């Protein structure tokens, strides 16, 4: 619920959409190309939808709108604490989780550009706008290099760089909330990646991003907050030490023609807001395995298993009468989903976060807890889904909870293309 780029002015939201609509007009006019067979007159009547473009590109910009809603209830009322994600269900009843406008396309022969602009309704009814990601990636650097520049999710682990509508569950894993806050680890900066010349997929990433801002929970996060009992102060980039550095290595192997394994190791290192000597280091490992039937119908049946574990080492600087101290905590989740027949998916997930918080007063945002979740999802097509999820939450100090959520998604416009 806290993002530096957010703006509560409905006028801004209107401006964004006016901008998007203007682009629609531009793209739609540009759509017929010389090689295409002459379009039938009726095709032009449907101009806005023709933005759903082919890979060969029939428009300058692909435009899509993805809307994600949740409805349901929980046995407890502190949902802002129980659900750690900014796009998780935030209240009993209905929640607008995420309404995401995506614009993407080739900038020129050297860059591709993408923007993800998110609209949300806060529990009080106010509309918030969030510039979630906007970045360019290079397309033709030599030596298998690629540079990404702009505001983007840091390449840490498997879930962090992804958007909520691609997740297998209604809410984000607890460990992601604890380490990276409600909106994921993201900031403005640059990422260099190198696809290594190995016979299997092997890629190295290094992101360098500003180390301060509301989306950097473990680092230079919002002034005034309390982390490990320490007040967070103002921070800015003053030297190379003030950047967030996120290295990652990922490798993948096709174990059989029908089974693929993807493993990765990531780290995030940067300053934290407790003072000049405050430093945070988070290390993580992740694994993903998928089996898909050789005669898959619409991609079904399949089984996917995914797990991530992270450990955080938080060096708080001396502040006031509080001496410098090191805090450590960790978290992990493991999930399995089974697409047992076309359109239908069953899932189970186990979440755990814990750690040594010293003799700090009990803080519901940092207590040890676990969660078990089960869900079933129905995909009428790849453009919509309906999901029912049950969560059992157990917390060290706060009340345990049972929650039931129904989620609905629809996608308009350009065909979604999913990474592995």
């Amino acid at each position, binding site marked *: 619920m806290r993002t530096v780029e957010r703006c509560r002015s409905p006028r801004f939201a209107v401006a964004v959409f006016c901008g998007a609509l203007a682009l629609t007009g531009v793209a739609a006019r540009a759509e017929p190309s010389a090689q295409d067979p002459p379009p039938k007159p009726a095709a032009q009547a449907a101009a806005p939808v023709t933005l759903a473009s082919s*890979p060969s590109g029939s428009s300058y910009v692909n435009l899509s709108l993805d809307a994600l809603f949740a409805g349901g209830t929980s046995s407890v009322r502190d949902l802002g604490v129980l659900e750690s994600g900014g796009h998780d269900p935030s209240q009993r009843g209905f929640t607008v989780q995420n309404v995401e406008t995506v614009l993407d396309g080739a900038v020129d022969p050297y860059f591709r550009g993408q923007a993800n602009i998110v609209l949300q309704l806060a529990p009080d009814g106010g509309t918030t706008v969030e510039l979630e990601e906007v970045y360019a990636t290079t*397309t033709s650097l030599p030596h298998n290099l690629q540079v990404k520049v702009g505001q983007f999710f840091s390449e840490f682990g498997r879930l962090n760089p992804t958007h909520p509508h691609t997740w297998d569950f209604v809410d984000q894993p607890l460990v992601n909330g604890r380490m990276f806050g409600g909106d994921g680890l993201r900031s403005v900066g640059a990422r260099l990646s190198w696809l290594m010349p190995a016979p299997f997929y092997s890629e190295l990433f290094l992101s360098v991003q500003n180390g301060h801002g509301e989306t950097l929970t473990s680092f230079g996060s919002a002034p005034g907050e309390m982390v490990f009992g320490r007040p967070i102060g103002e921070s800015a980039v003053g030297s190379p030490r003030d950047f967030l550095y996120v290295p990652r290595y990922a490798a993948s192997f096709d174990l059989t023609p029908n089974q693929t394994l993807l493993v990765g190791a990531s780290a995030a290192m940067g300053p934290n807001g407790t003072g000049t000597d405050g430093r945070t280091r988070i290390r993580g490992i992740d694994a993903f395995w998928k089996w898909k039937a050789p005669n898959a119908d619409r991609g079904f049946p399949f089984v996917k298993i995914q797990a991530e574990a992270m450990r955080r080492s938080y060096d708080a600087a001396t502040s006031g009468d509080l001496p410098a101290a090191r805090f450590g905590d960790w978290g992990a989740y493991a999930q399995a989903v089974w697409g047992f027949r076309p359109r239908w998916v069953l899932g189970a997930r186990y979440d755990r976060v814990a750690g040594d918080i010293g003799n700090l007063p009990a803080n519901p945002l940092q207590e040890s807890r676990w969660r078990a979740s089960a869900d079933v999802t129905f995909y009428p097509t790849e453009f919509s889904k309906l999901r029912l999820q049950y969560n059992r939450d157990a917390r060290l100090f706060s009340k345990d909870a049972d929650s039931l959520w129904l989620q609905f998604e629809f996608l308009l416009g350009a065909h979604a293309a999913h990474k592995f």
Partner: protein
Amino acid sequence: MTLRRLSWISIAASSLAVSGAHAALRVVATTPEYAAVASAVGGDKVSVTFLAKPTEDPHFVDAKPSHLVALNRADVLVEGGADLEVGWLPPLVQESRNPRIASGGSGRVAASEGIQLLDVPAQLDRSKGDLHAAGNPHFMMDPENAGIVAHHLADVFCRLDPGSCTAYQANRERFEKTLDERMRSWAAKLAPFKGTPIVTYHSTWRYFAARFGLVSDTFLEPKPGIPPSPPHLAEVIAKMNDQKIRVILVEPYQNRKQAEVVAEHTGGTVVNVCQFPGGLPGTDGDYFALMDADVSAVASALAPRSAS
């Protein structure tokens, strides 16, 4: 020093040659039928791999990291170009860092180029199912179109590897000659059934039907990409009984049980066919063997059954 440098160069050159298996061009095809045509045209001058399995639904293929590696090293990418691969190919190509196969790159081949596509929607409206903006992408089931693709590939291979152009054009001529011969026998096999309607699971066989004089306008799917529903299957059963339609074509990844239920209620036959070489036994990597198998299966299912 010169000797030492030379030895390094020769080691590097030999390792390159081994990795490329003496092939001048590395070709990646999205689906196996383009790979089969590319192999026929390229012969031993090219190495060919494909991404989608011949038995899986080509609309829903995983964008596996190993595909990314294959695309990164490709000289040529052959795709359908009519949105069949839209759900998985774009992120792979974008991440492949390979300008040769990027949109507009020298090695990017849209097989649909120069082919008159059927079923081009007048209006893009997903309430009508998963329509492909460019038209029906299953054009390779008309063998004439395979000839057009062979031409297209020979031209691209010649442009990228002029030294072997005579070989490519000779291979292309051989492919076309065989295609012409087989075409006559396929047409003869299906000639007795001109005007006969068939039922298919998906609109995969529209080009096949148009070429061989069959009628393909009844589908088990109520709309493209939407799985069969009981009310729609009831309509299909009624139509089959009414028009005496006897044959239901099903591909390896489609739900055979539903087709069998329809067959039970109509006295029809469920026929295994495939649009990809390797999807039926004995058709691995061979477009002609695949069409032989498909044509024979359809012809024998359409043949009047002797009373027993």
